[in-house]
């Protein structure tokens, strides 16, 4: 973070009203993002925000940078072209759970595995908001929606587990109420060279109100979330009395008092095995892990294209129109 940034949050706030519903979790995500952008010290001209379709995909209109609001599910495919065409830009993609993981699921897989250098903010409210309340690929089994009046019959995707499964290089989860953690994660996601997937548990007050209460409400959050901090023991609970230990190949919740302290797992963001292990913490037996699961370095596809083109230019000389036209077997008449 650049403590002496010459930019202020206000520099990233454009004219015009923000048109999300009152109480929408997207407001806090937008505000934290604008703060982080200002703190990077980079000119607003150097950011490109790209989105697909959905409530959260209005995001680019609300950030005073370059913005492209595109079509449903395709933000990552479009961002791929933008980033490869101009690796100098800081590319950010805003997406919802339906946009990014249902209609855009295929692009998500390939963007992760290519390790495109960009920040992806996945605003996960477990519902389709803009189409007014149908279930999404992250809706919990049994959730009643307009298209599942007796409850959904599908298991949800866990975006963190999915991204880890694709060898994502930066995988994090936070909530729309965890301001400090969210801004720390967003700044680290910006600084990470590679595909930074930040899942933000976000409340939709209209169609799925309270879906993330366990993780966000004051009364419940301490007992139902595990804050991952690099080098720190995995201890949680209002009274710091619960911990995570290893039980075979699965995590297990225990009382701190009942175990030898050395058994309590210590978080290590560089340990991809541990990341996968923690991704198993889904469902009511576990607290919801928040924080950075993994950060590791790997080549990014935008730089790989740059490097391989430079190598070919070095090897063959810079291509000219003349040698393009005259290459191969030619003859004179």
């Amino acid at each position, binding site marked *: 973070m650049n403590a002496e940034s010459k930019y202020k949050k206000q520099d990233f706030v454009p004219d015009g009203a923000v048109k999300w519903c009152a109480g929408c979790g997207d407001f806090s995500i937008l505000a934290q993002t604008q703060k982080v952008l200002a703190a990077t010290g980079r000119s607003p*001209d150097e950011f490109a925000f790209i989105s697909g379709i959905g409530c959260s995909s209005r995001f680019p209109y609300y950030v005073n940078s*370059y913005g492209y*609001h595109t079509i449903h599910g395709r933000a990552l495919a479009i961002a*791929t*072209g*933008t980033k*490869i*065409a101009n690796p*100098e830009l800081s590319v950010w993609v805003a997406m919802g759970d339906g946009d990014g993981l249902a209609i855009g699921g295929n692009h998500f897989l390939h963007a992760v595995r290519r390790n495109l250098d960009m920040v992806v903010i996945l605003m996960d409210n477990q519902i389709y908001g803009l189409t007014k309340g149908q279930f999404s690929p992250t809706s919990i089994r049994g959730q009643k929606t307009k298209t599942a009046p007796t409850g959904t019959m599908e298991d949800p995707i866990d975006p963190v587990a999915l991204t880890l499964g694709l060898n994502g290089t930066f995988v994090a989860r936070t909530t729309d109420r965890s301001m400090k953690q969210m801004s720390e994660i967003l700044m680290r996601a910006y600084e990470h060279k590679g595909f930074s997937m930040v899942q933000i548990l976000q409340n939709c007050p209209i169609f799925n109100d309270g879906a993330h209460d366990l993780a966000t409400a004051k009364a419940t959050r301490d007992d139902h979330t595990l804050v991952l901090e690099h080098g720190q023991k995995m201890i949680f609970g209002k009274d710091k009395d619960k911990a995570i230990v290893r039980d075979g190949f699965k995590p297990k919740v225990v009382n701190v008092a009942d175990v030898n302290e050395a058994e309590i797992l210590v978080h290590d963001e560089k340990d991809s095995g541990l990341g996968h292990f923690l991704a198993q913490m889904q469902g009511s037996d576990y607290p919801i892990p928040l924080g950075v699961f993994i950060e590791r370095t790997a080549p990014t596809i935008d730089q790989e294209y740059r490097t391989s083109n430079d190598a070919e230019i070095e090897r063959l000389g810079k291509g000219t*129109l003349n040698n393009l036209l005259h290459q191969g077997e030619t003859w004179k008449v």
Partner: protein
Amino acid sequence: MNDTIKIQELDQVVIRFSGDSGDGMQLTGLQFTGASAVHGNDVVTLPDFPAEIRAPAGTISGISGFQVQFGSKKVNTPGDFPDVLVAMNPAGLLANIKDLKRDGFAIIDRDTFTAANIKKAGYAEEVDPLSPEASLHKKIIAAPITSQTMAALSDFEMDKKSKERCKNFFTLGILFWLYDLSPQYTTDWLKVKFGKKPILAEANIKTMTEGMLYAQNSGFFQSQYRVNSAPTVPGTYRSLTGNEAAGIGLVAAAHLAGLKLFLGSYPITPATTILEEVAKHKNHDVKAIQMEDEIAGICSSIGAAWAGDLAVTTTSGPGVALKGEAMGLAVITEIPLVIVNVQRGGPSTGLPTKTEQSDLLQAMYGRNGESPMPVIAAKSPADCFWQAIEACRLALKYMTPVMLLTDGYLGNGSESFRIPDESELPKLTHTMVSDPEGYFPYNRDPETLARGWVKPGTPGMRNRIGGLEKDALTGAVSHDPDNHDTMVRTRQKKIDNIANDIPDLEVLQSKDGNEVLVIGWGSTYGSIRNRVAKYQKQGKPVSHAHFTHISPFPKNTLEVLRKYKKLVVAEMNLGQLSKLLAAEFPVEVIPLTKIQGRPFTEEEIELVVDTLL
């Protein structure tokens, strides 16, 4: 030396090579074509691939074909029916003998005509494929090609299979002798190709030489033939398939525009070789990206176009269907983009390796909403180069997606391409702006109606665009009814105005009256041109007009159409251009249609036009 052998001169010859897909027929055909082109002939080729990569050997479904027409004047097409059929096995003979001209001949590899192979090819039991009945009374030259190849290579230390693989060069040698062509082109090629395995170069050269000697001494041929060089424009030439030409044209366009080329694509027959061609040119700083699907192909290109690259996506009809929504995004955000559709037989998977022109209406209308874009079509393999540049010119100048239609026949077919001087190439302009003074995203050039192109990263010009309808000036989201009406009409007008910036429709005019105008577009050019030229030589009132620009039509279109009593529209679909012409102009047209996965023959055009004379 047999000095009784005479040399006869011919104007043009059609040879069809056919064999198992592993027999090297494409290679043999290309080598013959190269030698003929270097000799100065005009050449046009058409490969005919099976849909399977390696269908069961010896069967008809595994036959790979390659046809070349070479001539001492412009030949325009790969020819309808072969003068010479090369059949490396019984299946090749059975599949093609009916097409062989009555006064033509087939050269077969006698060694492959075993009982088992004859059966595999699908001949009825006890039929002798070489009998006059089975060969439809056409002349067959049964040369022992495999055994002669093995004999020629008896001193070479190679395994049997490797020796056998040289047999196509024996065949090539026969043809080189027969058409009095120098084998030098192929000798040079082999030396480069097998630079690291000189024994293979030597073996193939030896086999080819033996083939030439065999042709001379076998007594099969009483005459050699010569096709003199064609009076072409002097210059440097190379042979290009349509897809290679399109790929090179796109890279050239980026040079001409001073931009970087970005090609986001996905493999699909018969378009893939454009992506492969462009991918070779990394030292031109092109980015050829194989994306995860068709939609990602076009979307990555849109993202790159937004970022300031000359962006293109290449595909075939099924891919265009998938790209429809994204094309609409390019229309409404007025982003320069070229979509190349190398058409194939449809609908659905259809005939992937065969040719058709049935995506014209899809190109015109295959998107939601009022979503106009320029549509242009290449008329020959070499023309794919020129139209790729033209598509880029329009996209950049008018800030619009442009559809370039070619097809499998053009994409895979090849012809001699005269390498243009750089001064012959158009200058490509674009609308990139970097001055924030008075800038709005939908400020338009008063003449072209194109909006300014602003690369993200440009200081002080931040803006936000998207697929929602935009205010006609500021680019802010607008749901205002009048604004939408204005924007829809403006986008249409911008495309319509391009009519002022494209060449007039030209006519190959008959001196003998305006009875019939044969109209075509795209790849039917060669067959129509050849047949109409013959009518004109015969003093018949038949003329030819061929569309390159279809959306918009050239300004003089109605003026041209009105001059003729009868308008025949020949196309490889059920009459799609006919529909467009009839809808746009107060004229009646007679559709002449064919949907067989193959180009028109001259005879098929004649069958209809004759009835109108």
